[in-house]
């Protein structure tokens, strides 16, 4: 029986306003979000490092990127770094590791976000390096356990996932109702999205305030309030997701992927080890091997292997 392809988990959308679709507005949006994520990554990395005090001077250092892919060289570096971390962990008290772990995780997540926002910016390499720096420290202190899902072995390791520079896009059909008058936005010529208008407070059919959508609030029924007009999405229908190289939602990316461990049904010991958290991803201890773009990656997965996640 042919083994199915490797699975991938995708985030489709994230909460908040729809990012600008293009042009100078989008450039500004990406830069502002990217810079603040990068600052957050730096800040929490510094906090984690600071908690180590004098020990910070002897912390293992991430290997510089390889100039060309070299599996053996990378393995050797990973093993060497694993030994360095084992020795370093001998001298670092557990309480300190426990305290710094959330900061290093935060730094890693923010670095991933920064790279997603800044991948076409001059700060792209800085953000990219921030992922390696944080993933290396996180893995050194707390490891990078893989897990079992759908009869396969999976990882969320940012080191493995960020290399795949693809995103998700989904076609959505929906109506938008004017938040002021309730007409479809395209039929309402009066209220322009983003501008304020007076609206008379009332209770909706479900008993909520039509100004703020709360059950109880300070808005008085019958009184007029200034409200910003916007479109309320209704009757939403999702189409199929597709893989794109630049998603409109910069964070609509792969969030987990499946590793090739062969058929798990014949490997009971392996499964037991994974369930005990003993099988670790080591990629994050090694050097960067470069990025994989849309065209290189697409032929490696088949559509049925894409598992679609909700808002991230």
């Amino acid at each position: 029986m042919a083994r199915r392809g490797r699975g991938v988990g995708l985030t489709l959308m994230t909460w908040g306003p729809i990012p600008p679709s293009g042009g100078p507005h989008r450039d500004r949006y990406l830069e502002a979000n990217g810079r603040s994520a990068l600052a957050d990554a730096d800040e929490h990395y510094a906090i984690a490092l600071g908690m180590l005090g004098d020990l910070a001077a002897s912390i293992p250092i991430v290997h510089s990127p390889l100039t060309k892919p070299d599996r053996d060289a990378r393995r050797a570096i990973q093993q060497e770094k694993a030994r360095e971390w084992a020795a370093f962990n001998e001298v670092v008290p557990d309480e300190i590791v426990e305290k710094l772990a959330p900061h290093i995780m935060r730094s890693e997540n923010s670095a991933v976000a920064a790279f997603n926002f800044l991948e076409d910016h001059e700060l792209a390499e800085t953000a990219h390096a921030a992922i390696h720096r944080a993933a290396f420290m996180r893995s050194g202190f707390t490891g990078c356990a893989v897990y079992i899902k759908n009869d396969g072995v999976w990882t969320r390791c940012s080191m493995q996932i960020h290399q795949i520079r693809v995103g998700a896009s989904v076609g959505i059909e929906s109506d938008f109702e004017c938040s002021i008058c309730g007409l479809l936005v395209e039929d309402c010529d009066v209220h322009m999205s983003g501008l304020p208008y007076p609206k008379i407070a009332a209770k909706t059919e479900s008993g909520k305030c039509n100004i703020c959508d709360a059950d109880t609030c300070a808005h008085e029924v019958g009184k007029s309030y200034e409200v910003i007009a916007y479109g309320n999405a209704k009757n939403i229908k999702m189409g199929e997701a597709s893989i794109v190289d630049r998603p409109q939602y910069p964070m609509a990316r792969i969030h987990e992927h499946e590793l090739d461990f062969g058929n798990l049904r014949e490997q009971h010991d392996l499964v037991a080890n994974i369930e005990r958290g003993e099988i670790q991803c080591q990629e994050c201890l090694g050097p960067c091997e470069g990025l994989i773009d849309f065209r290189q990656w697409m032929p490696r997965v088949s559509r049925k292997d894409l598992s679609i996640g909700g808002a991230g």
Partner: protein
Amino acid sequence: MAARITENEWTPLEGALPATTSGDTVYVIPTRLPVRDDDEDDKLPRYTDQMRYFPKEARNAAPALPVEFSMPSGSRKFISEYSIDPDMWALGLAVLTLSNDWLIFVTQSFIDMRARAQGWSPEEAQELPLKVSIVETKTSRTVEIEGKGSEVIEALRELKAKNSGGKPIGKK
């Protein structure tokens, strides 16, 4: 560079045209198929999300502008696709005759809307790629014009001049 013009090669999607075409009205027609093809009772073409605010914004800029959707309220559906914007924005229009006075104005409004939506200056927006597909409902002739915004506007000017004289559409 001049715009690329093709005649009678493109055909509007089934159900995209207005039930009746009146006088000088410019109808915005849908150019996309539904996101799902599994609903046999729902095959009507869709508008792209950019079009949702277009007739409204165009009328807001010029209150008497006769521009409206070809499909009536209630049957209109819009698709948003959340990959980043295609560089080329596309506009589908239906008019009774190609000599319609408002074609140029409506197309310029579309370019202006893009400038506002994405933060381009008016001059920059004229340089962005644009495709306008037009059906002349009286004859079922179609024209597609592709190029920079400014080139498309220029091509529309020539098209109007040729068609106002009652002659057939000239060669490019």
